[in-house]
């Protein structure tokens, strides 16, 4: 059974159909890319899977369970985490605090925090340790006490990934994780993503514009254009597909065929 299944998903905003009858199936531990020109509906699809929007029609199933229309925090608890196209860190909180927030998520209890029964301090310390460990894994340890908006751009993107990982997801959705990065940074990111899949057993779906970044990294690629899926398959197949080439013609198409 695929971990994520999107069946005939349609999303309409008033008169505009952003996503039309999208079918997508993602197996566990797969690394899938969602590509397509601007406005193709990729982020909208992400937003539906993560609960920001509800589907207008069609179904979204995670681990066999229908999740369409559930609120984002509930979907997060089920094991889906994401990063955003435009970085959405908690800017005035430190890097550590950004991650720690996600570690706690919905499991906080105001009552326990106020009363501080024995064991509270131990739990707090454990959380802090885990947060530090995550930062370390992503090479951000030295920024632990820096406010998130003070981090350099590339590090901010990695912090967003660290924060997403703090929710212990099974499925990670990365929305343009390499945007604004130079080739060296992109290579490092690609290596990181690959490592995360291997070490944490994650299933990853990512959106990106940079076709070559995606080609070398992913198992499968799905191509969206004007809300519809126009191609899907292994990277080499998709790259040669004439419909894909045409969709990208006229928009920035780094290395597309």
């Amino acid at each position, binding site marked *: 059974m695929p971990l994520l299944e999107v069946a005939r998903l349609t999303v309409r*905003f008033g008169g505009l159909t952003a996503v039309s009858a999208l079918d997508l199936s993602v197996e566990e531990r797969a690394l899938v890319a969602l590509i397509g020109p601007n406005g193709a509906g990729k*982020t909208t699809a992400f*937003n539906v899977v993560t609960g*920001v929007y509800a589907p207008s029609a069609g179904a979204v199933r995670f681990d066999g369970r229908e999740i369409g229309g559930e609120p984002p925090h509930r979907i997060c608890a089920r094991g889906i985490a994401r990063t*955003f196209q435009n970085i959405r860190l908690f800017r005035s909180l430190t890097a550590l605090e950004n991650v720690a927030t996600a570690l706690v998520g919905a499991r906080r209890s105001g009552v326990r925090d106020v009363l501080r029964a024995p064991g509270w301090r131990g739990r707090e310390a454990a959380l802090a340790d885990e947060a530090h460990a995550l930062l370390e894994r992503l090479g951000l340890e030295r920024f632990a006490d820096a406010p998130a908006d003070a981090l350099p751009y590339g590090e901010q993107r990695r912090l967003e990934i660290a924060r997403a990982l703090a929710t212990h997801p099974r499925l990670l959705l990365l929305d343009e994780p390499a945007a604004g990065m130079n080739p060296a940074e992109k290579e490092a990111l690609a290596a990181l993503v690959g490592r995360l899949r291997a070490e944490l057993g994650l299933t990853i779906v990512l959106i990106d514009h940079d076709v070559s970044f995606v080609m070398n990294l992913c198992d499968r690629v799905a191509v969206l254009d004007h809300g519809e899926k126009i191609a899907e398959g292994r990277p080499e197949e998709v790259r040669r597909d004439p419909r894909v080439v045409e969709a990208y013609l006229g928009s920035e198409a780094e290395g597309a065929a």
Partner: protein
Amino acid sequence: MENFLQQLLNGITWGGIYALIALGYTMVYGVLKLINFAHGDVYMVGAMTGFYAAHALGFASDPSLVGFAVTLLAAMAVCAALGALIERVAYRPLRRRGAGRLAPLITAIGVSLLLENAGQLVFGADPKFFPALLESRELVRVGGVAISNIQAAVLATALLLMAGLEFVVMRTRFGRAMRAVAYDGPAAALMGVPVDRVVMGTFVLGSALAAAAGILVGLSNPKIDPLMGIMPGIKAFVAAVLGGIGHVPGAMAGGLLLGVVETLVSGYLSSTYRDAIAFVVLIAILLYRPTGLFGSPQAEKV
């Protein structure tokens, strides 16, 4: 039946006044996305200015249409200047800094408090009696409903001013610029629209209308005091939200509607709850249709 019509007339009259004040709120919100809490107090300053001007110019003891008109214009001019001053000193620096939405709101509250308290100091906290610039007499009786010349003056002035504003907004270059800034400020700036001047002009227009409302209220309800702007200010704001904040015809409609509803409910049910009606309406709109009767929803892009 005649009582109902009489109440309706009263409601429309009050509605016109709320509409005049509401227009200022809605225009400023349209261009700045700011709730100008101080607007109700500008209305108060208008009434006070009228009071002093009428006495100084001798119209207080010698009522006449000319006296009314001159007082009206004087008050509008003074408040137009006040509005411009407030914008320049309190709001523009925040805009320069890109201060977000919260800081201007807090500043607006501060300016409002300042006007009220300075008003108490300068004008004295005790209520004054607005001079009768027009000698009150019954103008006409239509089917048992009496229309006094004062009510006629209030309605006529309000309608004229609203028509004038509608003309400015829809038919002049300035109005077009205003609508452009309200629609998309940054884009308008990029297209060469002088945003600062448009904003200032918006404040000028809105404040002038509020001043007019102050004079009209002074005519019909002569007791004026430095805190008189608080309640009508809030109610006019509710009216603006009711019509769809940022939407000019909406503010007019909202004002009239609120005036009528308030007068009818207070007349037929209970007058002690008169002030509460506006708040109940406010809560109802915010919960069920926050964009108001004519407004359009704005979605956030994720």
